[in-house]
């Protein structure tokens, strides 16, 4: 296999060998995985870390006084610190809350802050390009508390239209915004949004699910108050997500789920919540998953997030160029033009008049895995005037050979549907 893409010092052949799943075939062809925006694959190091944990260490955390229980607790909390350091959290030990996924992390904010601390009469400002995970929890809150929801529109350039931001921000108590669109690949400029929100006294909760795996992220310079993301999109296991929040904010927020672990004292007539971050972690947490996530973070840390970001930006640029060159007007890419800073490696495609499902089915027969559908962003799809797109998304293990395979498969689809 040869890769002609400029990868800087990334050696794709060596890198791919560390991902067992990428070594297999699909329908007798090389498996071309272009769906990392839905879920990434994991390197062997993550699988081994989790196996090793289960084989040598597993016990419940924060309970037993025996050696393996203490070691399990140590590894679980070490994972928390590693995640915190990865995103530049000032207080990793208290500000990183483990949840089931980003969706649960955002629901935590909607339940805890939204139902108890959002001042009466304040509106919530979202955007038209949010994933359902950052829409439905707020729609539920709106239905329950009668909170007004507003939306920053998406412009013709597939970017957030901030021209009316000041008017939209008037009377807003909380802003929910995605760092990067999972449909368009647009990386949002959060700077002006955060500044306007804070000037209006509003909090900003960011959905980092698509950005954290692909770009260096520093929560302090980003300026947001809360950041949600998920492990399985960043080489880690499923079943673990993260909510980072400023310490004093999390301190003020009441618990979300109730149960063991999240309490300091329970009486028959009430309870006292535990300290941060365990206050938000009811029940046995995802311990092995935290160990796996710790190992997952080690992977990009070793490779270098800057190099990964550069590789993906270059690949995205090359992909747009190559696909437009080979397929011209028959292919529509819903998203902004290539840009090293403001565009991520997500290409939502419309090809001829072939429905996304049919397209993805033919691509699958060619070994090419893409996502087809509305990508859990139905309001955005309506805005785009389509019901479904086929989406190819890149990660550090993808190269130009994958883009060529995609392009070849598009030709097969064109021939098949005539």
């Amino acid at each position, binding site marked *: 296999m040869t890769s002609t893409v400029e990868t800087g010092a990334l050696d794709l052949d060596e890198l791919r060998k560390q991902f067992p799943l990428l070594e297999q075939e699909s329908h007798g062809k090389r498996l071309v995985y272009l769906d990392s925006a839905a879920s990434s694959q994991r390197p062997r190091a993550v699988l081994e870390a989790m196996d090793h944990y289960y084989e040598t260490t597993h016990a419940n955390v924060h309970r037993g006084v025996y050696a393996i229980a203490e070691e399990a607790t140590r590894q679980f909390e070490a994972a928390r610190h590693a995640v915190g350091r990865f995103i530049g959290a000032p207080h990793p030990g208290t500000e990183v809350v483990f949840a089931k996924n980003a969706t649960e992390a955002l629901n935590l904010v909607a339940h805890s802050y939204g139902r108890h601390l959002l001042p009466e009469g304040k509106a919530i400002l979202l955007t038209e390009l949010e994933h359902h995970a950052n829409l439905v929890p707020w729609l539920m809150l709106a239905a329950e508390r009668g909170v007004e929801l507003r939306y920053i529109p998406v412009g013709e350039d597939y970017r957030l239209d901030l021209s009316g931001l000041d008017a939209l921000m008037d009377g807003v108590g909380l802003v929910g915004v995605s760092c990067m669109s999972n449909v368009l690949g647009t990386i949002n400029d959060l700077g002006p949004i955060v500044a306007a929100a804070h000037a209006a006294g509003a909090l900003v909760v960011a959905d980092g699910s698509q950005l954290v795996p692909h770009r260096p992220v520093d929560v302090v310079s980003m300026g947001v108050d809360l950041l949600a993301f998920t492990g399985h999109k960043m080489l880690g296991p499923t079943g673990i997500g993260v909510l980072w929040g400023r310490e004093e904010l999390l301190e003020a927020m009441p618990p979300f789920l109730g149960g063991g672990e999240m309490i300091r004292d329970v009486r028959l007539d009430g309870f006292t919540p535990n300290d941060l971050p365990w206050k938000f972690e009811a029940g046995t947490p995802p311990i092995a998953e935290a160990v796996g996530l710790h190992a997952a973070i080690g992977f990009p840390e070793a490779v270098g997030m800057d190099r990964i970001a550069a590789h993906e930006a270059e690949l995205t640029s090359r992909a747009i160029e190559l696909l437009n060159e080979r397929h011209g007007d028959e292919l529509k890419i819903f998203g902004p033009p290539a840009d090293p800073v403001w565009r991520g490696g997500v290409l939502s495609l419309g090809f001829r008049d072939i429905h996304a499902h*049919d397209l993805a089915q033919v691509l699958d027969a060619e070994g090419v895995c893409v996502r087809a559908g509305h990508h859990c962003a139905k309001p955005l799809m309506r805005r785009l005037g389509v019901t479904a797109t086929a989406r190819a998304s890149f990660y550090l293990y993808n190269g130009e050979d994958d883009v060529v395979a995609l392009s070849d498969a598009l030709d097969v689809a064109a021939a098949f549907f005539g």
Partner: protein
Amino acid sequence: MAGLEDLYREIILDHYRSPRNRGELPVPPAHRVEGFNPLCGDEIVVYLEVDDGIVKDLRIAGQGCSISQSSASMMSASVKGKPVEEARTLIRSFKAMMSIHEHSLGGDETDGEDEEAATVKPDDLGELAALQGVVKFPVRIKCATLSWNTLAQGLDEIAAGVPSGG
């Protein structure tokens, strides 16, 4: 392993390229009913005109993949002009043909009562049998059953005197 030709039979592609009974009917007298596939966002609208126990006319609108569109087209051709009871038997038969995997997917509302009622074997379903290959692609079963579920809902609504939905 199932190949694409199991899924995309020529008759299916023909119905996709030249859908039968495409369009709308004035409401009323026709009854309008919408169906959604939450997985992919496909939407279908069925316009039904039932008179004297007969499906006098029907039209299909909306958009979707080749499987959902061709299944809708075939459905329209097979029930138009037929007595409502015959249409219901066809719905049961078609869903029975599709149901094996639907159950394993935790899928549709094919209940036990339906399965005991009269059905037609796949071999006697005419060109509808071409859609049998869809069961080899479990994710696409909901595409194939969308229009049939929508038709069933429409017939139920007409029988119950429910006004046309959105």
